[in-house]
């Protein structure tokens, strides 16, 4: 029996052409009992290879090909756990001392890490071939002797590959001779790079991408033939025992085949024996971790629930006993420690996700939602049956604050004890088309056009196929080369391209993480990443803590600081008034621009119908506009019941208590789990198993199994017939997309806080929002226009007043927002900061004064400042308009020779150069300059100046739509601020059109969108005529006719959601 012991997957980035799963499936199809994966310089594909192999009952041998400074790549196979740890450490060492994507092992390092490793001599890239090329058989012999000295003769195999190449065969003959002389075993491998012969094309394309060539000039870099595919044992045996001339030469070579089986039997290591241990939290006074956790929890319980809440105490005790049983005290303490650090450093932090189901997390201050009060299901977070690590995600303010938390974890657990998880970047539609097209020498214009046509919307209709995109780009797939292009684009979809860094996932380890998984440097300085992505780490049982950056957390934090500074008030987000009328009034009116999670177009169209009146309504609101409830058709029944149009009835009397809060309609994942527990008698762990069975990685067999169990359970409880079917239907269709109640509650808390700040501290909230862009659904200009409609005043960018960020200023009308220099598009941050710094020392006297004191200011920056009016106030009371400033900056920013260095500054006595012959900008020009220079305007909305004309033409302002009857035929016009084509909306497109009075919501049916695609996608301003829909206070216009609306040169920027 032949076993393939030298295969590369696509995780040998741009070298292997098949996924680890594809290799495993092909291996199983060939009837091989096991296989080894040796990717280049890493174990990137090992978890996926192992998991796929485990699923089909194969053994996955682990190894890697390591680049060596002496030349060649050394194929190393792992025989034992010690070997695995050695390999991980060796890779980590070579990676961490080099730049990202580089690194090679020093020959002497093999000696240090040799235990548990078997070394093959490799194919054309191997050390033996390298030695033969460099110095003939003499050097090759020395190379083999050296390998035997390092790894031991029994751990070295002379590798023979046969790809029908005459050069390779010459090398094989030399290798066989040397092996016989030195008494080393020979081993047949096929140096596999892909599964099927046809995948050689991908391999060639990858070679070109790697070598920056195109196929036409890649020449001998391309593969000789298509023989590096996974061959069956029979094919391999035939290769090494052909009846041809080779038979005489290699008469004894069946041993090369036999040796594969023998060596495979020596490779005992299994990836499940990773040896990973979560770190031990260092407790004071040698207390056990559990005791320490109990104490911290008790303190928290007292603080959160008081001394007399027996229900809470019982829940906490129950959770603690599970934590103790699962030996997870350390995990909770480590997360608690990170939260404690953040609190100490005044960094806002809040746990999200299923951790919010835990009363222990709530007591420890990790989460902010009371799971006892909200009756949340602990088993969704942790259960004895699952045997998995719990998942705690922490939301932190995006930016520097989150980085501080990450650096704290590095400091605490050491460079080799903590690392970020990787993010495997794979080929997607656009990247595949662009790179393959380039390799096939297609011109860049065609590729741009194709890339543009590759659907960027979230929704893709059935006609929106790659074939159609090719057709639209004018490419005929019937042509040979275009046909290849098309096929290759499809084939390389989802194959890994390179390794990136996950945004927030961190893994920590007791002791050396580098012996569990290889580490390598990230592009970002000071960051180390593991070679596995988040999912792989979770699958391999490595605990991760997600430190996620959330823009709204940064907004909240900044708002609190601004309020503290300008209103001298201390806001505690944990103790906001619970039922603030202003908040609920705003939510009920869908006046929610800028508010977390409830500002989207879909949320706004639901809010007036749901009409939130209490905090739990916000939780429902956050969860209801999700694919789960929408696909599961739960939204309308829930809203109808809320509006009293449908009777509130439960699926079964037994489920009343579970579903009563959501009016008998299941909306949350926890409800499904509870339904399974109540109706079918599932335990908490079994219910969570059910969720996973129907989750993203669903398998038919497993779903069937769980369904049988569910039905059996319900039969036992007497729930049969149609009711049983309905419950099954609800559970199965919903489990995939359902939103956890705990997660919704955590988000609802942030949503409430953002709404509260917007309603009561609009200036601070708006300034903070503007300082944390990009985030949310809307562009800054929309946020400003919305704030202006709410009465907030703004001050323009001014080098004599503006800081880098937007700030608040006192005025007789209350606080107003001064736009920061950060909004001047071509102004560098360091220049802006320097301007503010110099101004703090002394006010600027003139533009030349500014230029002399901030010499790093560049000409373009000067022009940009002048264009947006930021220099208008620099000369005190002197009459400076934008054009005067532009006139002056052109002279100020020109280099001055030494002769004129000492001439008086403009604006000082004796200077007359500030006079400008230029006309001031008119209103349209200012508007255009504002949008071009800052992307926003504080002046009137561009639509305002056309109102008279629009009125004459019968175009209705957005604010008046609410007063019109349902079914009225109307025309509206405005700037497009949001375009959306959600995946769940069957091809409908939703637009938000803004005019000076507010926002009009537009619905475009798919046929109309097809016809007017270009206008809808590319026009900044639109005029839309159609039927007004006014349903339960939700106002929208169903478009019947769409025209571009021409409006000078102003270009508004929309936020398009794809």
């Amino acid at each position, binding site marked *: 029996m032949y076993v393939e012991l030298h295969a590369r997957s696509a995780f040998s980035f741009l070298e292997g052409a098949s996924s680890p799963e594809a290799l495993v499936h092909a291996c199983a199809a060939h009837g091989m009992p096991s296989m080894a994966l040796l990717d280049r310089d890493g174990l990137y594909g090992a978890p996926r290879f192992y998991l796929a192999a485990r699923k089909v009952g194969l053994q996955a041998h682990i190894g890697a090909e390591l680049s060596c400074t002496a030349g060649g790549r050394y194929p190393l196979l792992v025989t034992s756990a010690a070997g695995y740890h050695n390999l991980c450490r060796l890779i980590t060492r070579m990676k961490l001392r080099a730049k990202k994507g580089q690194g090679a092992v020093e020959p002497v390092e093999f000696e240090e890490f040799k235990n548990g490793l078997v070394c093959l001599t490799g194919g054309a890239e191997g050390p033996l071939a390298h030695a033969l090329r460099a110095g003939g058989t003499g050097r090759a012999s020395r190379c083999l002797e050296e390998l035997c000295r390092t790894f031991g003769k029994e751990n070295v195999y002379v590798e023979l590959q046969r790809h029908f190449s005459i050069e390779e065969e010459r090398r094989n003959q030399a290798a066989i001779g040397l092996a016989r002389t030195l008494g080393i075993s020979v081993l047949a491998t096929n140096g596999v790079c892909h599964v099927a012969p046809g995948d050689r094309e991908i391999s060639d394309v990858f070679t070109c991408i790697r070598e920056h060539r195109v196929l036409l000039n890649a*020449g001998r870099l391309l593969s000789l033939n298509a023989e590096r595919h996974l061959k069956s044992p029979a094919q391999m045996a035939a290769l090494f025992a052909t009846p041809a001339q080779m038979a005489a030469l290699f008469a004894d070579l069946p041993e090369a085949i036999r040796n594969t089986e023998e060596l495979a039997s020596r490779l005992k290591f299994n990836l499940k024996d990773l040896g990973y241990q979560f770190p031990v939290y260092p407790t004071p006074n040698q207390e056990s971790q559990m005791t320490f956790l109990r104490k911290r929890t008790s303190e928290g319980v007292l603080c959160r629930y008081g001394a007399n809440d027996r229900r809470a105490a019982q829940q906490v005790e129950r959770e603690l006993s599970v934590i103790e049983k699962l030996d997870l005290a350390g995990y909770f303490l480590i997360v608690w420690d990170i939260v404690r650090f953040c609190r100490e450093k005044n960094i806002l932090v809040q746990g999200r996700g299923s951790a919010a189901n835990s009363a222990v997390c709530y007591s420890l201050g990790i989460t902010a939602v009371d799971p006892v009060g909200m009756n949340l299901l602990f088993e969704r977070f942790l259960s004895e049956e699952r045997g998995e690590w719990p998942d705690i995600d922490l939301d932190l303010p995006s930016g520097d604050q989150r980085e501080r938390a990450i650096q704290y974890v590095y400091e605490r657990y050491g460079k080799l004890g903590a690392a970020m998880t990787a993010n495997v970047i794979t080929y997607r539609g656009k990247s595949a088309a662009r790179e393959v097209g380039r390799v096939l020498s297609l011109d860049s214009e065609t590729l741009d056009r194709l890339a543009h046509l590759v659907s960027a919307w979230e929704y893709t209709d059935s006609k929106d196929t790659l074939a159609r995109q090719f057709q639209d780009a004018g490419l005929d797939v019937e042509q040979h080369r275009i046909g290849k292009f098309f096929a290759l684009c499809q084939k390389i979809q989802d194959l890994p391209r390179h390794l990136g860094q996950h945004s927030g996932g961190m893994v920590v380890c007791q002791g050396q993480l580098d012996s569990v998984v290889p580490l390598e440097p990230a592009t970002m300085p000071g960051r180390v990443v593991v070679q596995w992505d988040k999912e792989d780490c979770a699958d391999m049982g490595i605990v991760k803590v997600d430190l996620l950056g959330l823009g709204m957390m940064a907004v909240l934090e900044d708002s609190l600081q601004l309020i503290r500074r300008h209103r001298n008030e201390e806001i505690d987000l944990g103790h906001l008034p619970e039922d603030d009328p202003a908040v609920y009034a705003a939510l009920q009116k869908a006046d929610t621009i800028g508010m977390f999670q409830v500002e989207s177009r879909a949320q706004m169209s639901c809010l007036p119908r749901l009409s939130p009146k209490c905090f739990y309504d916000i939780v429902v609101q956050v969860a209801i506009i999700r694919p789960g409830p929408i696909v599961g058709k739960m939204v309308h029944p829930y809203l109808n019941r809320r509006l009293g149009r449908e009777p509130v009835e439960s699926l079964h009397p037994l489920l009343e208590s579970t579903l009563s809060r959501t009016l008998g309609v299941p909306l949350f994942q926890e409800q499904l789990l509870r339904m399974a527990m109540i109706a079918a008698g599932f335990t908490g762990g079994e219910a969570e198993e059910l969720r996973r069975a129907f989750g993203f990685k669903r398998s038919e067999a497993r779903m069937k199994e769980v369904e049988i169990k569910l039905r059996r359970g319900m039969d036992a409880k007497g729930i049969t017939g149609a009711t049983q079917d309905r419950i099954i239907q609800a559970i199965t269709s919903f489990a995939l997309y359902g939103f956890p109640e705990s997660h919704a509650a955590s988000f609802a808390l942030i949503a409430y806080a953002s709404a509260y700040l917007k309603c009561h501290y609009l200036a601070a909230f708006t300034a903070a929002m503007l300082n944390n862009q990009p985030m949310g659904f809307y562009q800054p200009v929309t946020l400003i226009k919305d704030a202006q409609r709410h009465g907030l005043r703004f001050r323009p960018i001014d080098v004599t007043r503006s800081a880098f960020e937007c700030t608040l200023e006192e005025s007789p009308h209350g606080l107003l927002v001064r736009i920061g220099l950060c909004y001047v598009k071509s102004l560098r941050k360091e220049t802006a900061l320097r301007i503010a710094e110099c101004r703090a020392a002394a006010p600027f006297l003139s533009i030349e004064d500014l230029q002399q004191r901030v010499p790093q200011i560049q000409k373009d920056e000067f022009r940009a400042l002048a264009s947006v009016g930021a220099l208008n106030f620099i000369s005190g009371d002197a009459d400076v308009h934008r054009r005067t400033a532009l006139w002056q900056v052109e002279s100020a920013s020109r280099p001055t020779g030494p002769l004129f260095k000492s001439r008086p500054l403009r604006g000082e006595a004796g200077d007359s150069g500030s006079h400008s012959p*230029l006309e001031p900008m008119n209103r349209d020009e200012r508007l255009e300059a504002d949008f071009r220079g800052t992307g926003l305007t504080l002046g009137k909305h561009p639509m305002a100046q056309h109102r008279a004309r629009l009125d004459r033409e019968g175009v209705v302002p957005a604010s008046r739509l609410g007063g019109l009857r349902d079914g009225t035929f109307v025309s509206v016009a405005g700037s497009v601020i949001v375009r959306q084509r959600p995946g769940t909306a069957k091809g409908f497109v939703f637009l938000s059109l803004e005019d000076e009075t507010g926002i009009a919501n537009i619905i475009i049916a798919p046929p109309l969108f097809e016809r007017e695609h270009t206008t809808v996608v590319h026009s900044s301003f639109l005029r839309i005529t159609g039927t007004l829909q006014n349903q339960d206070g939700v106002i929208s216009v169903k478009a019947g006719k769409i025209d571009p609306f021409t409006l000078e040169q102003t270009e508004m920027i929309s936020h398009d959601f794809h």
Partner: protein
Amino acid sequence: MAFAAIFVPNFIFQSIARSEPELRIQPVAIIEGSPPTYQVTAYNRLAQILGVNSGMTKASAEQFAGVQIRHRSSAQENIAHMALLDAAWSVSSRVEDAAPDTLLTDIDGLARLYGSEEEIARRLLSRVSELGMDANVAVSANVETARILARAVSGLTIVSPGQEWRFLETLPVAMLAPSPQLAEIFQRWGVTNCKSLASLPVLALSERAGQEGVRLRTLASGRGNRPLLIAQPADSFLEFFELDDAIDNLEPLSFLLGRLLQQLCARVSARALSVGRVQVDFALEEAFESTIVPSRESRGARPSPKTFSCTLQLPVASSDATLLLKLLRLRLQSRPPGAPVRKISMRAEPARSRAVQSGLFAPVSPDPQKLELTLARIAAVVGQSNLGSPQLLDTQRPDAFHMGKFSVAVSASPPLQEASRATQTAFRVFRPPLPAWVQVQRNVPVRVALQGTLGTVVHASGPWRTSGDWWEERSWQEDAWDLEIQFPVGSETPQALYRICYDLLLEKWWARGVYD
């Protein structure tokens, strides 16, 4: 002083409409690019009314009813430009070639010949019109004003001296063709027309916009005068001949070629130059092709050539028309055009005459002109593609090479190398490969018939498998075997080692060569 500027608006379209005048009354879009990415680069007014725009794809332009699509032709543009020069030169000898579509002429002193400035301008217009183009002509005492107005104002414009600014003041600044940087500054300043630019104080402007700003201001105020840059004769010499009846015989063709060569050599010699390279382009008769409707299968195939080119690259420049004609004749004998010739376009690139003295100890090399003649004679016998120095191509494809130009190495003989001790086996390649018949048993050749003789395989080594060019329609896939073949007693070679190949795509066996 008086200057006239000639400007041909929409030059790309007009250069094509010269040869197809009927296009002037139809909507036309001119496209350029390579298939399938053609884009509209120019169009006429009728097409514009329909909605045709620059940058539109060919497919989009074709959607407009009645729009005629033509490819942009740089050859036609060049010829139109030459025609424009001819028109200008026919009136004045002092011509500046400002742009393909713009010429500036000095018309001072022409009044006695042609009359008033307006009459001269009308004459220029009519000359251009006779050559198939519509132009704008502007006359001014100021050459730059004339240029700007010719580009900006349709028809005829005569500017009285001192009134330049009146004509210029309403024109947009863009007509002065400022650099992108300055255009942006003007745009920021709100300086949109020539009047506002001319009104800026010159010193302050100089301080801010530099000398370019001052120059543009001068232009805007109608004071930008300068001497003409008189057009110099071109670097290459073009002769062109179009036949009424196509020629398919070398003799009459040689007569015409000889005449053209003599004209070229005379022009070249007059400038004390020699001919370094001659390129002759023949437009061929297409009568047969135009009557054939291509089948679906043949659409993708390479179309039959409509032109034929022949280039003489001379190792040493020469102005000997007889020699050049001999070389050309030999070249055409070995590789004739293949269809009757309709047009001949002959371009000569000049080079300086070279006088070379050989080194005293350098080996005597053949006279370059004689060598060239000899090579041409050989090429006439064996074919151009079978002559030269073979150069290996960078590909895995077996025996892939191309023939480079043969030349005598200038350096002395290479240093003697120590003979390699390893036994070198020579391989004699059969070109083209010989067809073979091969009997295979258990995937290994056992008997081979070659050139009518059947042999038995004694030893087989292989297969050596190669494949490639999978992205091309002509990919290859081949298994090569090294076979030791025993032929019957009495054969010319009783036993030999051959390389026999099996083409997996054509399913045929070939003998690629034999080992010595």
